[in-house]
């Protein structure tokens, strides 16, 4: 039986790394849970409401997108559209060329990871520097983020100190405060020399055309204080109908992502800087990125477009906690990634058809999701899709079920199996000839076999005087 790629990957993770990812995610999850329940009588009702609002947005993008475009334009923002990753990168490059710009500072944006922006620009002679501390470390190591909110959850301070030393950022020192101060000093110069500040957007209000960007470090703010041109890459699903809806989303996002009441810097940007303000962009561009989002919209998994990228489903997921982000071979890891990443592959869906199986379907991801995405349902729909399309990876790791199907559809075979099962109580477990069963018994003990008890009970249970079957309430067992 071919094993799932994710199971193969996990063998290469050190025990130390696994323990730190496990602990980091668990602590954040528990704090999130406490904060929500301390602050709200019924946080679940808020999640459901936020989910309804985002589902409404997703199902009305045909009217909201032209509306928000008009609003942005009337605010003095130049609006661009990119249907593919390549077009989105080219749009950024085009804006920079037109300004003669060669240096870009980047705040954290998942869309830019998705479209491979930094590499694209660097191949064209443009310096594109990550400014979020974690993303900066990912960049100097030529690595990939392993968590949506905490990109270097997989790295130790020792590894970071070694990277800083290699990059000429000072002699080896693994004190997190020293690491942070060194990054502050280095990136500060880069902010002040840069021509363009690139950000994503957590939300865009259709009503006002405000982009809402949240960071804890202040890197987005710094790039928008130091540079003269702001480019925002925005997935087409990032809209909220009204400013007031942000009251719900900002509260849920900060608590879900980092167990904060509110993220440190929450920026509301509706256009270029005010005339009297000496700092900040005189020119502002918004690039709406499709990159297969419209395919997801047309699919039976469009609910995933509600996602606000908080990472709560990663932190709670028993699979993510063990395997960590790189195991998902995608920009988006964890439960949300197991749904979104295969869909964003388009006609290469089969390459990631195993990801929807990287779940025990325990449902925790749905329970913590601030927009109440039914992730387990979507995973099942994608498992079906993998089967329908005969994707080989959709079969990987599945025990052969043919014998089971024969047995379960023949009453005689079933009865025989129930009796034969009793043998397992007396024979050594290692004799069990079924590989899937062996995988289970290698690490767990089986309870005593009691097959057939239910059938016996069903036959012998008391009946009513008129001969009809009794209801469980009317008889003592």
């Amino acid at each position, binding site marked *: 039986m071919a094993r799932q790629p994710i199971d193969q990957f996990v063998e290469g993770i050190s025990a130390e790394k696994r323990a730190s990812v496990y602990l*980091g995610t668990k602590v954040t999850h528990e704090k999130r849970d406490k904060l929500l329940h301390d602050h*709200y009588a019924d946080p679940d009702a*808020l999640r459901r409401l936020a989910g309804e609002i985002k589902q*409404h947005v997703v*199902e*009305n*993008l*045909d009217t909201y*997108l032209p509306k928000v475009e008009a609003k942005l334009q009337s605010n*003095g923002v130049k609006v661009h*559209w*990119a*249907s593919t990753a390549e077009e989105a990168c080219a749009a950024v490059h085009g804006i920079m060329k037109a300004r003669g710009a060669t240096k870009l500072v980047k705040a954290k944006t998942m869309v830019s990871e998705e479209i491979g922006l930094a590499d694209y620009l660097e191949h064209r002679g443009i310096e594109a520097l990550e*400014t*979020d*501390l974690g993303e900066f*470390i990912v960049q100097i190591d030529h690595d990939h983020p392993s968590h949506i909110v*905490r*990109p*270097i959850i997989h790295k*130790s301070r020792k590894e970071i100190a070694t990277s800083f030393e290699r990059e000429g950022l000072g002699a080896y020192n693994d004190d*997190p*405060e020293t*690491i*942070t101060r060194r*990054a*502050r000093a280095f*990136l500060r110069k880069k902010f002040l020399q840069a021509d363009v500040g690139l950000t994503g957007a957590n939300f865009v209000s259709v009503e*006002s055309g405000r982009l809402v960007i949240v960071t*804890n*470090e*202040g890197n987005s*703010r*710094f790039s928008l*204080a*130091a540079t003269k041109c702001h480019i925002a890459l925005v997935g087409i699903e990032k809209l909220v*109908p009204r400013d*007031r809806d942000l009251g*719900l989303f*900002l*509260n849920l996002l900060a608590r879900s992502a980092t167990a*904060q*009441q*509110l993220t*440190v*810097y*929450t*920026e*509301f940007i*509706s256009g270029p*800087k*005010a005339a*009297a*303000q*000496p*700092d*900040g962009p005189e020119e502002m561009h918004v690039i*709406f990125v499709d990159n297969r989002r*419209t*395919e997801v919209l047309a699919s039976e998994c469009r609910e995933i477009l509600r996602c606000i990228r908080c990472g709560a489903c990663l932190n709670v997921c028993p699979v993510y906690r063990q395997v960590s982000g790189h195991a998902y071979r995608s920009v988006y890891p964890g439960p949300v990634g197991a749904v979104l990443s295969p869909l964003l592959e388009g006609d290469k869906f089969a390459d990631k058809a195993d990801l929807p199986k990287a779940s025990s379907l325990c449902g925790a991801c749905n329970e913590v999701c601030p927009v109440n995405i039914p992730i387990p349902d979507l995973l099942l729909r994608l498992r079906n899709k993998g089967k329908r399309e005969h994707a080989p990876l959709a079969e990987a790791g599945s025990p052969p079920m043919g014998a089971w199907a024969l047995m379960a559809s023949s009453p005689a075979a079933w009865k025989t199996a129930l009796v034969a099962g009793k043998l397992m109580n007396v024979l050594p477990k290692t004799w069990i000839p079924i590989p899937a069963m062996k995988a289970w018994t290698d690490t767990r003990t089986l309870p005593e076999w009691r097959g057939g008890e239910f059938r016996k009970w069903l036959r012998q249970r008391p009946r009513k005087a008129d001969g009809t079957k009794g209801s469980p309430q009317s008889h003592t067992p």
Partner: protein
Amino acid sequence: MSSSRDIILERVREALAPLPKRAPLPEWDLSRARSAVAPAGADLWPAFAARLRAVNGTPVASPDELVALLGAKGWHHGYCDPALWPALKAAFPATFTVETAFDRERVDDYQFGITSAVGAIAETGTIVLNDRGTTTRLAALAPWVHVAAIRRENIVPDLASALAVLGDDPNVIWVTGPSKTADVEGILIEGVHGPGLQVALLLD
């Protein structure tokens, strides 16, 4: 050849066309977003100060208190919004060098920056800055200490009320405590790109 815009919008319409009906926009009462720690009452400064402390921010109730704080740490060189300076000048002894023009070529020379906040949110300990009220964005961000001068009457009780008064300024920013990160092994470090000390100064 159609533009990317037309292609995307056409794909969106095609994707949504088969839906028998669209999910409606739920109406909801803003009070639902209020958390258990949102205060009420006429004077919101005490509640704001308590919430600011909870996010490691530093409330100060007078210019004298501010000067004592800065002096104790040896932070003697800074910037002050020229409109605020006349009211604060008397509290600063001659050992301080306070500039009323911010030079971006020397951002690291300023140990503190004093600028005006247009409001504050008591529920979250948040300071509200905007473009028209802030003399320079960099002065409120680059120095190690940012001092936001706040008027008592501009403090709103909760986040939902603050959303209702965003107004027409192109750039509003809510600042909730000092700049921070937990990227390295989940350990909290303050003062990443922005201030390591976030002060709210009450102007009365």
